[in-house]
């Protein structure tokens, strides 16, 4: 089992900002759009270096999505940015018709996803966006796990032709992936190999899953940790290979259980290879105000919760 360490903590949104700064230098067709949240999206460097390729839309997200779709007609690669809540649920029909159905090369890049937005509370804590976005035919949905991976994903999606939803967040979390990694869309990353239980995690929950793996190891349990950074297209092979080895699974996501990563895994299990599975996620509930740490504990999204579900999955497998 590989031991993951970190020397610093950073927010994934800053990884996005760093990726955008590089795209500003390397990809002349990349255009950034924002709906009055430039600071929150860490776009300052991109805007400073490429003022002519930044479009301030004001608090008008629907118009921003439409303008983004239009910009692709002419070969631009628009990165439409706002909070996850306003870049998914608020503009679902605009994304559906003008971006997904029209197959436009728009990158919808959203921060402050999930509970870890914290004190602003449930109005801003979207926990349904992965589900909504993955249901759209042709939409690629990516939810990277740390600063470095978010930066790499940001750069990678500019080279990919088609609509993308890239989701990241606000809190500072450990930076534990390689700084110079190449991001492969749709290819799950096996963080740690194991034999007793497969833990499939995405976004902020990947670090929690790594910690859970260490706790389980102390109990003599070998957990396989897999980072599903791409929710769609889904890496079915990675799931099948792992569960055939371990015989049980746990999903972990900062998202509703209904319709999220776990349900994508469950589809594979039900249709192709049945094993017991447990979900770590928000169970049909809105969030609330609090610190990110308090909220992750209250809603059951910590390493301890993953350990508990892993033990339960193993018990079911052995019963």
């Amino acid at each position, binding site marked *: 089992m590989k031991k993951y360490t970190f020397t610093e903590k950073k927010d994934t949104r800053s990884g996005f900002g760093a990726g955008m700064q590089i795209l500003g230098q390397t990809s002349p067709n990349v*255009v950034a759009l924002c709906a009055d949240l430039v600071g929150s999206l860490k776009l300052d460097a991109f805007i400073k270096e490429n003022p*002519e*390729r930044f*479009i301030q*839309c*004001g608090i*008008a997200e*629907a*118009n*921003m*999505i*439409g*303008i*983004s*779709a*239009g*910009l*692709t*007609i*002419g*070969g*631009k690669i*628009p990165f439409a940015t706002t909070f996850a809540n306003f870049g998914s649920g608020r503009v679902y*029909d*605009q994304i*559906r*018709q*003008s971006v997904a*159905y*029209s*197959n*436009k090369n728009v990158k919808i890049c959203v921060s402050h996803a999930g509970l870890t937005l914290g004190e602003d509370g449930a109005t801003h804590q979207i926990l349904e966006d992965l589900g909504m976005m993955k249901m759209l035919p042709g939409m690629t949905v990516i939810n990277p796990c740390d600063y470095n991976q978010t930066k790499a994903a940001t750069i990678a999606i500019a080279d990919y032709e088609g609509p993308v939803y890239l989701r990241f967040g606000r809190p500072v979390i450990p930076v534990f992936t390689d700084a110079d990694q190449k991001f492969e869309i749709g290819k799950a990353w096996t963080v740690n190999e194991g034999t007793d239980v497969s833990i499939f995690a995405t976004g902020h929950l990947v670090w929690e899953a790594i910690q859970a793996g260490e706790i389980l190891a102390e109990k003599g349990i070998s957990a396989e940790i897999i980072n599903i950074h791409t929710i769609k297209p889904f890496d079915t092979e990675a799931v099948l290979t792992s569960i055939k080895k371990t015989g049980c699974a746990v999903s972990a996501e900062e998202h509703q259980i209904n319709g999220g990563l776990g349900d994508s895994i469950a589809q594979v299990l039900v249709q192709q290879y049945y094993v017991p599975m447990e979900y770590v996620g928000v169970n049909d509930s809105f969030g609330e105000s609090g610190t990110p740490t308090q909220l992750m504990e209250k809603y059951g999204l910590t390493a301890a919760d993953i350990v508990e579900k892993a033990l339960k999955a193993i018990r079911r497998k052995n019963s």
Partner: protein
Amino acid sequence: MQITELQNVASQVRRDIVRQVHACQSGHPGGSLGCTDLLVGLYFDQMTQKTNADGTKPFDMNGIGEDLFFLSNGHISPVLYSVLARSGYFPVAELATFRKLNSRLQGHPTTHEHLDGIRIASGSLGQGLSVAIGAAMAKKLNGDNGIVYCLMGDGEQQEGQVWEAAMFAPHNKIDNLIAIVDYNGQQIDGPTDKVLSNRDLAAKYEVFGWKVLNLAKGNDMESVIETLKEARSLTGQGIPVMIMMVTEMGAGVDYMMGTHKWHGTAPNDEQLAAALAQLPETLGDY
């Protein structure tokens, strides 16, 4: 093109519209007929488009160096399909597939079936002006002098996104954009003034910062061309241009005029014959 030639094209397009809608017994003839003169004026006279040696039109999504047209009120697809086919984007015979299974001519326009001439899906209302603004901004970034046109319905003005776009365009000096509102005063549930009045729509756009032109006779080809020319002359001056185009829903077919009844109703066999009797076949039916 001469006005009389354009009028001849318009007559054929109107035949195509009622025949398309009749053949599948669904679709929206009223608004299509009302906007026929505008679309013919744009595609057969005003818009700069690449043309092949044989008269057909090449299509590339980016439309570099061309003028672009976006139909926001996608339900009047019959008129767009007819004008695209008649101007050379795809075979006229394909109009017979309108709204039928496996057709590229979906009920509402889409890029999904790769129909040449279509650059965006529309139908869910209120989105086209935003898309047109984006395409106009791409042209500016590309140093492309083409003009972007966008047609919306007057009922569609009730959508909030229209006003996000209306606020954005003047603030950002999108002056390679000519938008048109089809002011026919009708929507599905009745007269627009009764459903939810636009009140003084021209004044609203003016106060938002648009240059507004009034096209009082939107079914008179001479007036249409004159206004489109004037609109074009006003581009490049730091201000987007809006045309309030007054039309008669159902224009060209007497029994479809003066009512919202034909917004989304198909004529039966007798009604089709009555309509076609009023519309000379000028370019040959498909």
